């Protein structure tokens, strides 16, 4: 009979190589999901020991202390204490430590000992410690902390078998599933108790660790350049430039490929199915709708590849350092930089990336302004309207006027995000400045295997979320735009007679003050699925078949029908309006409440309305009406 299964949990400081060790232990046998009721990522994998025992491994979020400050750290605390709702308490805790940076983790180990859960200590990155001439009296330290110690190099899979054997031996000796070795005496430490623990950790360091003979100097030398007040900022800006070039230029062919593939799939399905409702639902609703989001996958993958590489190298903390003052002026945290950057591709991964921000207030502010960053779904709308209304000429000799308007739209998004967060900070969360405390980790060469597996996980999460959130929305919007059918002998486009069309006509008086005609209002409704769907919808209303391929024709139709003031008002609306139901759905998921998507919708609609009204009337006054 195979031995019973066991559960272990990995705990450790951030940057201890815990996730690399998790990957080395479990290989590709991993599952990523969320913990029940909270938006903390739950990573679980399995290993099979030499004796055939199955061990499930939970990779807990990194923490410096069990005294939790963020939802992530609360999960770590509750899982270790065995109090996490819906989770079986772990039989064993594996504490992962960066062997070259033991002081802080020793204090965490002392806290873990208070909990009394059986423990194994993995001294990771042991090769670097050896190279530096750092000496650790492993037997002595193991006796002092009362837990076996294994040395590992997770990225090279060194010591992984030893660790599994040690886990097996510990599990064998267990009193019972989830049992503690002693009684749990853990409580939130007071400042005095933290000082005491530091003193104890210091005593252990002195007794069992001889400091490095050749400490790492590379990180210091790299930082001298990357954190330089002038050179550092210049490098950061260049990196961003390369990243945007990559996101927008390299992704192009791949996106065309996906679009072509989905178009072909739609054609095949359309040919296979009899004409009618089912065909329309599958081709126009599901394939086209999900496709309109999937098409952003190449951009998101390229963006995440950059982010994961920079994160694994250790640069992201430096970027937050360089940007903190600039973002802080607007009331944002330095760590908000990455989520906002991701939002230029798509606000959905951007909002998901706000999980790195500890403080709830800072995180909410970042979530609220993320959709103001000009995501790539706005590009088709911007391009269409600019092509229709902005003459293709150069100003000041070299600058393209169309390009200038495009950058103006991006700048408007960024500037409004800074202003909104500044106002939010001043008005609602006054005086609540969260501390900015961040370890600047040692630089490391990213491990290609772990980068790829991370990238694959990101892609899988994006696809599954897109599927689950967007599919039902697409069906709803398709229904609104399809039913009821136009009456016999109708002359206008079919959408005009549908619920969406009726809703557009109904809403038109509301939009008349900002210069929209009813066609524009009707296009806004299917455009709630994703911003670029508005292009197709305008095509439908103006009876231009295949609007995306025939953008020139559509632009011609628009410039004949709209005034310049109307075109500018429509552009302004698209800078600010919450024209993206999936984003609102993701905000609901991430904040676990309908309040925040409602707040987001309300403030963005108000902002869009007022800005479009101002632009419209300003343009009319200038004689562009």
């Amino acid at each position, binding site marked *: 009979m195979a031995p019973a299964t066991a559960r272990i949990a990995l705990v450790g400081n951030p940057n201890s190589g815990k996730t690399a060790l998790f990957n080395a232990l479990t290989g590709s046998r991993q599952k990523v999901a969320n913990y029940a009721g909270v938006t903390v990522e739950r990573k679980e994998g399995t290993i099979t020991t030499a004796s055939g025992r199955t061990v499930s491994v939970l990779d807990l979020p990194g923490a410096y202390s069990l005294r939790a400050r963020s939802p992530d750290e609360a999960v770590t605390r509750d899982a270790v204490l065995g109090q996490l709702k819906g989770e079986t308490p772990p039989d064993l805790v594996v504490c992962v430590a960066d062997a070259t940076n033991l*002081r802080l983790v020793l204090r965490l180990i002392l806290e873990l000992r208070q909990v009394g859960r059986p423990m194994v200590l993995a001294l990771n990155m042991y090769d670097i410690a050896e190279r530096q001439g750092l000496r650790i009296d492993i037997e002595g330290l193991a006796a002092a902390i009362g837990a076996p110690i294994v040395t590992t190099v997770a990225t090279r899979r060194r010591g992984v078998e030893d660790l599994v054997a040690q886990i097996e031996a510990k599990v064998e000796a267990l009193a019972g599933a989830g049992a503690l070795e002693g009684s749990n005496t853990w409580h939130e430490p007071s400042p005095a108790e933290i000082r005491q623990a530091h003193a104890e950790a210091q005593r252990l360091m002195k007794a069992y660790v001889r400091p490095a003979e050749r400490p790492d100097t590379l990180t210091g030398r790299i*930082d001298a350049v990357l954190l330089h007040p002038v050179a550092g900022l210049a490098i950061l800006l260049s990196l961003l430039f390369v990243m945007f070039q990559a996101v927008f230029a390299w992704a192009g062919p791949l996106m065309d490929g996906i679009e072509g593939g989905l178009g072909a799939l739609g054609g095949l399905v359309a040919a296979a199915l009899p004409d009618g409702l089912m065909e329309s639902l599958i081709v126009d609703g599901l394939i086209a709708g999900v496709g309109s989001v999937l098409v952003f996958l190449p951009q998101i993958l390229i963006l995440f590849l950059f982010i994961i590489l920079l994160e694994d190298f250790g640069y992201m903390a430096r970027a937050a350092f360089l940007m903190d*003052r600039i973002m802080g002026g607007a009331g944002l945290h330095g760590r908000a930089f990455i989520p906002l950057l991701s939002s230029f591709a798509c606000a959905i991964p951007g909002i998901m990336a706000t999980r790195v921000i500890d403080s709830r207030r800072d995180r909410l502010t970042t979530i609220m302004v993320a959709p103001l960053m000009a995501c790539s779904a706005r590009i088709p709308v911007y391009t269409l309207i600019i092509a229709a209304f902005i003459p293709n000429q150069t100003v000041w000799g070299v600058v393209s006027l169309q390009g200038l308007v495009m950058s103006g739209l991006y700048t408007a998004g960024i500037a409004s995000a800074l202003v909104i967060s500044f106002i939010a900070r001043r008005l609602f969360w006054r005086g609540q400045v969260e501390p900015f*405390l961040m370890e600047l980790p040692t630089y490391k060469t990213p491990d290609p295997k772990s980068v790829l597996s991370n990238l694959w996980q990101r892609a899988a999460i994006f696809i599954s979320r897109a599927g689950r959130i967007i599919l039902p929305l697409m069906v709803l919007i398709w229904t609104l735009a399809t039913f009821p059918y136009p009456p016999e002998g109708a002359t206008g486009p079919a959408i005009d007679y549908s619920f969406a069309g009726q809703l557009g006509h109904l809403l038109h008086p509301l939009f008349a003050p900002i210069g929209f005609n009813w066609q524009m209002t009707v296009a806004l409704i299917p455009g709630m699925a994703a911003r670029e769907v508005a292009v197709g919808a305008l095509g439908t209303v103006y009876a231009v078949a295949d609007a995306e391929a025939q953008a020139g024709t559509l632009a011609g139709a628009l410039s004949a029908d709209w005034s310049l003031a109307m075109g500018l008002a429509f552009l302004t609306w698209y800078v600010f309006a919450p024209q993206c139901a999936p984003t609102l759905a993701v905000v609901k998921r991430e904040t676990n409440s309908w309040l925040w998507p409602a707040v987001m919708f309300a403030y963005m609609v108000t902002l869009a309305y007022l800005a479009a009204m101002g632009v419209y009337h300003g343009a009319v006054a200038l004689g562009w009406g």
Partner: protein
Amino acid sequence: MDELSIHPMSATLGAAFREAPLSQARLGDRGIIAAVGAPAAQGRGGLAAEELERRLLELGFVEGAEIEMIHQGALGGDPIAVRLDDMRVALRRRDAAEIIIRLTGEA
């Protein structure tokens, strides 16, 4: 100094060394942390002050730790980065006001 000793005993330091909050440090200043979280709780509630003290302690800002100011931001020299024993940590000067260092070397 003992080869194994990472934190020199405070007693070995003479009274001649100047004490100053880390928030006023300049590039290249180095010293030993003399106090954390004590005097500069202005503008924060009592609870927030203790919370900051605990966070600083948890990240290794503890009395006796060796500290050196190694980087500062372009605007107003904020935030700052310090070498703290074997680690590097970034923080804002505002939060650094809670840390008093005994300067052993000044820039």
